[in-house]
């Protein structure tokens, strides 16, 4: 694993604009940074990232069984009791999940360590699946990259295949999110594109436009009943909002399914450590207040159970990063500092689609806590 420099494509900004990648530049600074890339060997990708990601996903599926059977854990994860049956039913019914992103510490030598699993509303998807792929293809075409350079990235193909296997038949898939946020809109529109390529009939609807009928069913803007909904919107927010009380009683199929709530929670890190103590892919982690925290060697990281984008994170005795999260409780994890590549600290976002590890996207910045302004840098496999 090496960090390398390369000339940017002169027209990359026009390309970003033409595909709707509006947040490629945020506040005048590139979020998409193609002056840098990471180079992996095939062995580093397959043995160092792909196989461990698959292992972690299997452990997570086991954790769903474990958590659902334990009311004390459901409570500890701050999952509202009114949703417990709803969650358990969706798991027993084998409701299919679509995607997720493991954030991993990896330096090319030691086994990766799990920082967290973004199981409910992961983004940085389009840049990983599409823009990064275009970058490599075009650099090979232009002779600026070796012909045999490859990339760990079949995310796009796997998404289309996954939509095709959802079993929707002739039912319409509604896709929803915040219609007025560039990143969310791009993610939802990209997934919509994949769903259509899989042959599904789809409709987009802003989350705030979803309606409700007298008998508690959900509707789109033309009063069609929504039977299947992809939502890029946190489960815990949906349940807490005005219409949330009607979700458990409704038959609408949700993507991600309700059972994903047991994984989209930093408390998962403590649960995994309880289930697999000492596992080489895990960092020791406990729920806040656990006396074993005192036994952790070295510095620790305190994370909100339901935090996002590196907010409200406390490393050791340092002041917390800013943010609105934390009221549901915290988990404390042993600190494993991000590796240092000449002052840049990359975190590997390892994607799973329909149960399969299928690609990575890398974010880097100088800080130890990766925030929403970390640059996205592409990668290649060579050698």
């Amino acid at each position, binding site marked *: 694993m090496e960090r390398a420099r390369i000339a940017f494509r002169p027209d990359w900004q026009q390309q970003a604009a033409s595909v709707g990648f509006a947040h490629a530049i945020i506040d005048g600074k590139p979020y998409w940074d193609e002056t840098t890339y990471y180079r992996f060997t095939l062995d580093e990708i397959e043995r160092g990232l792909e196989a461990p990601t698959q292992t972690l996903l299997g452990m997570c599926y086991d954790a769903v069984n474990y958590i659902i059977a334990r009311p004390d854990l459901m409570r500890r994860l701050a999952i509202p009791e009114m949703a417990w049956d709803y969650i358990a039913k969706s798991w027993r019914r084998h409701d299919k999940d679509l995607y997720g992103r493991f954030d991993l510490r990896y330096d090319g030598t030691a086994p990766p360590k799990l920082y967290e699993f973004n199981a409910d509303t992961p983004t940085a998807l389009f840049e990983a699946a599409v823009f990064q*792929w275009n970058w490599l293809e075009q650099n090979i075409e232009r002779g600026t990259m070796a012909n045999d350079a490859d990339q760990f*990235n079949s995310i*796009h193909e796997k998404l289309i295949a996954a939509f095709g296997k959802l079993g929707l038949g002739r039912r319409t898939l509604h896709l929803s999110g915040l219609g007025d946020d560039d990143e969310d*809109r791009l993610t939802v*529109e990209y997934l919509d594109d994949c769903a259509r390529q899989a042959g599904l009939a789809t409709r987009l609807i802003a989350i705030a*436009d979803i309606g409700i009928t007298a008998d508690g069913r959900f*509707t*789109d803007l*033309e009063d069609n009943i929504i039977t299947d909904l992809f939502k890029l*919107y946190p489960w815990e927010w949906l349940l807490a909002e005005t219409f949330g009380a009607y979700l458990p009683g409704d038959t609408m199929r949700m993507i991600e399914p309700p059972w994903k709530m047991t994984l989209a929670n930093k408390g998962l890190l403590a649960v995994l450590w309880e289930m697999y103590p000492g596992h080489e892919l895990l960092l020791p982690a406990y729920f806040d207040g656990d006396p074993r925290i005192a036994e952790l060697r070295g510095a620790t990281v305190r994370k909100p159970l339901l935090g996002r984008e590196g907010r409200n994170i406390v490393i050791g005795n340092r002041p917390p990063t800013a943010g609105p999260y934390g009221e549901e409780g915290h988990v404390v994890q042993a600190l494993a500092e991000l590796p240092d590549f000449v002052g840049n600290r990359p975190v590997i976002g390892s994607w799973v689609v329909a149960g399969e590890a299928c690609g990575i996207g890398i974010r880097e910045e100088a800080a130890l806590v990766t925030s929403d302004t970390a640059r996205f840098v592409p990668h290649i496999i060579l050698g």
Partner: protein
Amino acid sequence: MKRSVAVGLTIAAGAAAWYALAPSARDEEIAGNLYTDPQSCAADGRYTRDQCITAAVNANEAHQQSAPRYATQADCLADFPGSTCQPLYQTGGGPSLFVPAMAGFVVAATVASAMSAPSAVPVYRTCRNDADPQACRSGGSVGGGAYYTGSGSAVSRGSSGSSVSLARSGFTSAPSTATLSRGGFGARAAAHGGGHS
């Protein structure tokens, strides 16, 4: 090869439609008459006293079934400023909900002419923040402020008296599939600035 063979997008950037067609594109306007109570309806002379009472009763029934529902009084008042928002009494239990007070009813002129019992729908009144609340709540046979059907269609006031027009869909009675309320999701995004990770 560890990467996709081809990565094609089929929808041009910015071409995706997040919003349905405007109601005007699929809904013609029909004429009717707006009354705040059976007495003003009868006094208008277009309908008999019995027809007016039947219309008011029908509208009230529709109001009970399909008034826009809100989890809190504040949410209700946000959509119906200047209105009175009351708790809805539900027979089956469930979360307590608030509905705006029925401010009157619209009798559909075309339907009424063909039937002895005129079709009527409940309407709800809002006052803009800068309107004089006194003038909004009182005044004439139809009162002040702006009127909406339960599905959010505006009731357009005619040039004189009780005449109004509104979208035909306001008269289709299918409460089981009609949307009662929107905006019950999305509130937390404003406080947190997006919910992705």
